[in-house]
């Protein structure tokens, strides 16, 4: 990127509440990938995209959070999230929240236009074709529903994974099947969610992979939690960690002490 003519894009990292709270290493992996691709990364003060409220029917809270988020990222050229569901909330649902407020709707539209999911931002917007990471393992990649259906993310992470040295990518049977997380659904309808994730866990086992990746921490925690309860030894990480070559931290649900099932 020619910095003299084109200043580096100012990318606001929307880290997502799950990454922020549960697994900061994913956020740092995202920063590394963005900076290596020539971006200036900033992290405005943020909380949540508002999905939990939105999907529970609380539009007022969702609107309040949206207003706050739009304001916080006002000076960014792009807003990038390592999550299809959060990027989807920002890019696809924020404008609709302000259907009765024309002024805010315009702002929300402009904001939505600059929101992207991480892998698609790297590949589609910045033209990144490969990464310099290495990872020894047989990897299966789960397409989260929001990534697939709201954000059109499927080929991009796979393209980048193909460039990771030592990594062999295999596919799941029915890769587009939901894992049963669905946010609050997993807790409200635990037994039903469990029945669905059990199928996904079996599919991961059938794929022969030793590593599960996805661009969605909620799905990953859900599938990891089930596999670990079942005693399956599959390492689970966010795809950004592998792409950035930052795999020193223990995989999801494991500890540094290496407590294995």
């Amino acid at each position, binding site marked *: 990127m020619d910095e003299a003519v084109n200043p580096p894009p100012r990318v606001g990292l929307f880290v997502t*509440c799950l990454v*922020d*709270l*549960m*697994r*900061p*290493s994913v*956020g740092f992996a995202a920063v590394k990938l963005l900076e290596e691709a020539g971006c200036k990364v*900033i*992290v*405005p*003060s*943020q*909380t*949540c995209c*508002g999905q*939990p*409220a*939105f*999907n*529970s*029917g*609380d*539009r007022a*809270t969702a609107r309040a*959070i949206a207003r*706050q988020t739009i304001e*916080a990222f006002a000076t960014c050229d792009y807003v990038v999230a390592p999550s299809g569901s959060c990027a989807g909330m920002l890019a696809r649902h924020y404008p609709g929240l302000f259907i009765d407020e024309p002024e805010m709707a315009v702002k929300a539209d402009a904001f939505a236009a600059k929101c992207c999911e991480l892998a698609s931002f790297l590949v589609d917007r910045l033209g990144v074709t490969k990464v310099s990471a290495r990872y020894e393992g047989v990897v299966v990649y789960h397409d989260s*529903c929001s990534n697939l*259906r709201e954000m059109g993310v499927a080929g991009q992470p796979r393209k980048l994974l193909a460039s990771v040295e030592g990594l062999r990518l295999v596919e799941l049977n029915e890769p*587009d099947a939901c894992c049963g*997380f*669905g*946010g*609050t*659904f*997993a807790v*409200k*309808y*635990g*037994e*039903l*969610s*469990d029945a*669905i994730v059990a*199928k996904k866990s079996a599919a991961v086992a059938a794929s022969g992979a030793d590593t599960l990746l996805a661009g969605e921490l909620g799905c990953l*925690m*859900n599938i*990891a*939690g*089930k596999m*670990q*309860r079942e005693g399956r030894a599959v390492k689970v990480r966010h795809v950004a960690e592998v792409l950035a070559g930052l795999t020193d*931290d*223990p995989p999801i*649900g*494991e*500890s540094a*002490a290496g*407590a294995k099932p």
Partner: protein
Amino acid sequence: MSVATTPRFKDNVHEALQDERLQRALRHSDNFVSGRAAAAERLPEFEALRDSARAIKDHTLAHLDLYLQAYERKVAESGGHVHYARNAVEANAIVLDLCTRRGARAVTKGKSMISEEIGLNAALEAAGIEAIETDLGEYIIQLRGETPSHIIAPAIHLSKADIEAEFRRAHRDLPAVRDLSQPEQLLAEARAILRDKFFSADVGVTGANFLVAETGTSIIVTNEGNGDLTQILPKVHVVVASLEKIVPTLADAAQLLRVLARSATGQDMTVYTTLSTGPRRPGDPDGPDEYHVVLLDNGRSAMLGSQFEDMLRCIRCGACMNHCPVYHAIGGHAYGWVYPGPMGAVLTPSLIGVAKGGQLPNASTLCGRCEEVCPMRIPLPEMMRHWREREFERRLSPVVARFALGLWGFFAKRPALYRVATDLMMRALHLAGGARGRFSWLPFAGGWTRYRDLTAPQGATFQSRWRAKSGSVR
């Protein structure tokens, strides 16, 4: 109307998950998924046809009053009669009246979800009239006293053994030593028994996939031909259909027909697509003497102009439930009423109220597969969300959930407080989960930890680490 067990949805779910026979049977519906994909692949115009179909329905709904009037004029012109019913009670009364006027003792029925909705069979039986389902799947579940578990494949939850057991129990006049181990034998037996019923019926009742205003025609699609024998053999043919089945012209119906079977079973066309217009004409050697159409409202007019209007585009193909992870896990009966799967989740609260039917739109991950395959491009997840909004406004959601979300919202609207509070909590949880890196149990997280381990956080939050690194906010 038939009684809903939807309020006890979670119990229904539990029973369905424990039912091994049901779980085995549910694995069969994968055929519909591959079938639809193959059919769509084989027709280059498929996506454009979905758009065309959607536009036709939207146009029709926007002019529904006028098309209804045009339709009834044409039915009358061809010698038929249109009867309007505001609700289930009125619809049943009309059909009963048509039957008793003819002294009818037996009624054959083609598959009709509307007749399930209004509880027609029960109303007929109460009046001493035998109602016989003729669609093979419907016939089998009628013998078992069950309701359909899928709108296209009503007996999909049953095994061959279940069906054999039922036939032996119900067809007592046949020799007990007969071999019913093969599906062909079961079919042959049903065919023979139902053939008699087709001939002895006084009235035949069918549903309608479409009602065509141009010619006053009703259209049904079947693979068996039972809907045809139901309507051409008895003296009276009664069609029960809801208002939104109207389409303007035969050419419009052709657009919809091209996406219907493909979305449902993966066939390009069902074996029989039958257009019925009025009673038999002078010179016709077969056909009914009388043709009646019962047009049912039962909540449709109220859906027009509402947030749920798009649901009126539904052509009852079943693609949504065939692709739904929730339906695949529990089958149709667990939904508790007539319509299962995503379309049932959106339609049921409209018809029986959100207080009774509200569980259904909540029991979804909003994965979006339904909308992806819906031939009419109905935004099903969006409408499920609308129902959740209605429930939230009416404070119908469970108290604990409201409290937890309210608490989350409180902090999420206050970034500085949020950062401090979450950092503290995550550090504490990290220590608590330390050695294993995950929890087998956590207070307030029972819905999760009963079935899965819960990852422990890494400790300090991203935002607190970022600030520590860069020493400033931005």
